[in-house]
Each structure stands twice: as structure tokens, then as C-alpha cells.
């Protein structure tokens, strides 16, 4: 009995170490999208944890016909949309601890912290002014690891539609961003 379970445990340990590589490679991208989708660093932390835990549980269902990044984004988008739709999210305004934003902008130099924090706030305000579709589109297109086809797949439309909407999304973002200066 013990002999039979040992390889299972060992293989799981191996999977765990492989998974830490996946985490290191993609956690920054997942956290950033969650942060900008939820506008709350604590919730983005929770979401990132939950996304990777879900991915760990479902790793054997990952077929490899899409990129790992695309697969993780799919889980992230669904998870964040669910979080944003909950009653709690809709009705209760949570007080966001300012230090959490500062930790999210991880820099040594206080001036840099301020600059990145300010930029982050302007970006967040601009994104919030956009329709959800544009916001998601810009966040995904900003990831250079994703092709237009993959963005199209994630947003359930054609690559041509992505290109068309991207133009309008950029314009709308630029308009709102200039107003936040």
C-alpha cells in the first residue's frame, strides 16, 4: 500500500516544482490583469492565488494546444469577472490600504514608487472610463506574448474585430488619460 502511493506522491512533488516555474513565468502578468480588472490590490492578490490554485488542480486538463499564458488568462478573466459580479463587490466599497498599492509597485526608490503609483492611478482611472470590452482588449494586447489571434480567442471575436476595436480603444484611452494629467 505504502509502496503504491509513494510514486504518486513523488510525481506530485515533481509537478509542484514544474508548477513553480509556471508561476514564476506568468504570475506578474496574471497579477497585473487582475489588478487592473478589479482595481483592488488585495483582491488582485486573492485572485492571483486562486487562479494559480485552479490551474494547479486542472493542470492535467491543459492540452497544450494553446499557450500556457492564454490558458491562465482565460482562468483569470473568468475569475475576475465572477469576483466583480458578486453582491459584495457591487454593494460594499472596501477601503483600500494605500500601502498595498505601494507594495504592488515594487521599487526601492521612494520617488519611483510615487511616479509608478501616480501613473498607476491615472491608468486605472482611464481604464475605468472605458467599456469593459475595451479595457480587457487593451490589457491583453499590451502583453507582447499574446498574438492578435490569441487575444481574439480570449475575447471571443475575430482577429479583425480585435484590430478594429483596438483603434477605438486606444483613442478612448488616450482621451481619458490626457484628462487625468
Amino acid at each position, binding site marked *: *500500500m505504502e509502496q*503504491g*502511493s509513494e510514486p*504518486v*506522491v513523488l510525481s*506530485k512533488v515533481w509537478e*509542484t516544482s514544474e*508548477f513553480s516555474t509556471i*508561476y514564476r513565468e506568468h*504570475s*506578474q*502578468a*496574471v*497579477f*497585473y490583469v487582475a*489588478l*487592473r480588472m478589479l482595481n483592488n*490590490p488585495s483582491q488582485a*492578490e486573492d485572485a*492571483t*492565488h486562486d487562479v*494559480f*490554485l485552479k490551474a*494547479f*488542480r486542472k493542470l492535467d486538463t491543459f492540452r497544450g494546444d494553446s499557450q500556457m499564458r492564454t490558458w491562465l488568462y482565460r482562468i483569470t478573466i473568468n475569475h475576475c469577472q465572477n469576483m466583480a459580479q458578486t453582491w459584495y463587490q457591487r454593494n460594499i466599497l472596501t477601503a483600500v490600504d494605500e500601502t498595498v498599492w505601494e*507594495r*504592488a*509597485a*515594487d*521599487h526601492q526608490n521612494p520617488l519611483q514608487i510615487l511616479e*509608478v503609483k501616480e*501613473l*498607476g492611478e491615472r*491608468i486605472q482611472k*482611464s481604464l475605468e472610463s472605458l467599456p469593459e470590452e475595451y479595457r480587457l482588449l*487593451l*490589457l491583453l*494586447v*499590451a*502583453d*507582447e506574448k499574446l498574438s492578435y489571434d490569441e487575444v481574439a480567442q480570449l475575447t471571443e471575436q475575430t482577429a479583425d474585430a480585435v484590430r478594429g476595436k483596438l*483603434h477605438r*480603444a*486606444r*483613442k478612448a*484611452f*488616450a*482621451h481619458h*488619460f*490626457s484628462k487625468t*494629467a
Partner: protein
Amino acid sequence: MKEERKLKTNEVGQEAEETRNSEKTAPGFQHAEEVLRFDAANTLPPPEIERRLQESMKKELSTETSWWKRLFSKGG
């Protein structure tokens, strides 16, 4: 005629320039994606997430192990 065509070409060029400018987000950044890319590169996930994840995964694995043990002890 030629003059008219040239005018049209100029108009198209002007329109393209206006479009490029309307998409320009801030000095140093050409498009929204560039600002977002810069921001994303400077936004690191807090290390607590990795620690929490490791704990959660350990818990999951230990639950699976005891599930196997329970299965075998029932079968045996």
C-alpha cells in the same frame, strides 16, 4: 485633375496623422499598450501570493495522499 488627386492624398495623410495623434497617450508612449506595458513591468506581484499558494498546494497534496490511504485501507 492631378491637383485634385494630390489634394486627396494630402487629406488622407492628414487624417492618418490626426488618427496617430489621437491615439498618442503621453510623451514617450505611442499607444495605450505601451503605457500599460510599462506599468505592468513595474508592478510585481507581492511575494505573499507565492507563499500562500505553496501552502494551499501542500494542503491539496496532503488531502490527496490521505484520500489514497483511506481508499486502500477500505479496500484492504
